[in-house]
């Protein structure tokens, strides 16, 4: 079967993906410095922080147009729902007041 082929094939684009740089760096560093690495906890925390920032840079943030339309739709939806629930509540509470009050 061709199952395992995927792992040996090179990416078609041929362009070296910068996507996995930090990950690979991290691994090679690990190898060099034994299991835990020679660095102290602060250096490791710093490295972790830099990795977080690096990952955050690769995040696709929604474009302004999408953001606006999503926000509007959500606000309209929430407003409509609040309106409906308020109406229902008002109806029921006056009914209950009539029955028990």
């Amino acid at each position, binding site marked *: 079967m*061709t*199952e*395992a*082929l*995927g*792992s040996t*094939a090179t*990416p*078609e*684009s041929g362009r*070296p*993906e910068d*996507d*996995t740089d930090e*990950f*690979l760096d*991290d691994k090679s560093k690990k190898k060099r410095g034994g299991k835990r690495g020679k660095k102290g906890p602060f250096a490791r925390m710093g490295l*972790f922080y830099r*990795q*977080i920032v*690096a*990952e*955050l840079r*690769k*995040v*696709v*943030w*929604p474009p302004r147009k*999408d*953001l606006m*339309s*999503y*926000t*509007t*739709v*959500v*606000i*309209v*939806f*929430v407003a*409509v*729902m*609040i309106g*409906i*629930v*308020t109406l*229902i*509540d008002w109806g*029921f*509470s006056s*009914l*209950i007041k009539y029955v*028990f*009050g």
Partner: protein
Amino acid sequence: MLTGFARAFKTPDLRKKLLFTLGILVLFRLGATIPVPGVDYTNVNQCIKEAGGNGGLFGMINMFSGGALLQLTIFALGIMPYITASIILQLLTVVIPRLEALKKEGQSGTAKITQYTRYLTLALAVLQGTGLVATAQSGTLFRTCQVGNQIVPDTSIFRTAVMVITMTSGTVMIMWLGELITDRGIGNGMSILMFTSIAAGFPGSLWGIKQAGKILDGWGEFSLVILVGLAMVCLVVFVEQAQRRVPVQYAKRMIGRRSYGGTSTYIPLKVNQAGVIPVIFASSLLYIPALVVQFSGNTTAGWAQWISTNLTKGDHPMYLTLYFLLIVFFAFFYVAISFNPEEVADNMKKYGGFIPGIRAGRPTAEYLGYVLNRITWPGSLYLGLIALVPTVAIALFNGSQNFPFGGTSILIIVGVGLETVKQIESQLQQRNYEGFLR
């Protein structure tokens, strides 16, 4: 864009689902207004008016039950027992090997776990119901109220049992309604019911802000709160939509004479992969100490005093810190149980997919774990901060403690709203309509 809503109603089976959900919500709100037998309706109403919507020890839980708790209605306990039960079971799945085995079993195991969740809900509902009825009888539910100890005129055992049984069956009914919504309606039933309960409290609290305000007859505070609310909605939507896209390349393969695959896609990892679940979990877990105090009926003991000063007010530093930590914890926890890098890597390998630059199999799983871990940190911190910032701001401005636009309710409302809207959208698109998000 907004005509999309109209179009959603024109599609026959989508309309059916929407109306079904709305019908259930009507039932849900009806149950939240009918008082439990044995309660003096006029006295309760007077006490609520005097308390001014400020539930004290019960503020948060009252908000989550849509105001039904203080009114002692048949749905007074709300969906809280169900949520608490499902958290406990999800936590136990990690701890108890038998439950873990059940979870891995697939559908039949999940059904079994759901069954356990229901039993636990029942038990919690009995506990909570008894506690609530006891506090109502002793008059501690409304401490400042004059007729506070006359809410339940008849304290005989039979009456008490009837009240507890009614509330418990109310909770079971809510659980069923929620599952009906999940099965035949739109969205996740549990979150939709939660959404509705919180939404029910919105207008009243907004009006309360206007009444309490001083700038321009209260309209100043009113519009400020609305503006802050809108900005927060925008921010929440922004982060919910943010994704880290891990590229995946599929190998071409020939099956017979046709070739398949060879496409490149991506795995979307949301910055906030866990959604609103951590917030719901954290806030319902923080309610448990208050519940213990309420149930023990002993409000003067040292530990009870400590809990009610430190853990029940939404603006106490202790409460805020614990809340923040719990949210961060649950964000990681929920991501860990809902996204399994090994499984994804395995599936990718099976279908001939790989991440460029990473070997298939274990390295891929490691890489996914690496990205997920680093992306969840900012995500969880964001969740915690959003949930806290308004509370802190309000504490500084001396507002009421369980503010409707608190981060918790905004997160839940917007998160559930976004999820539901997206689900409606995808259902619309299935029928070749263009949807309304463009």
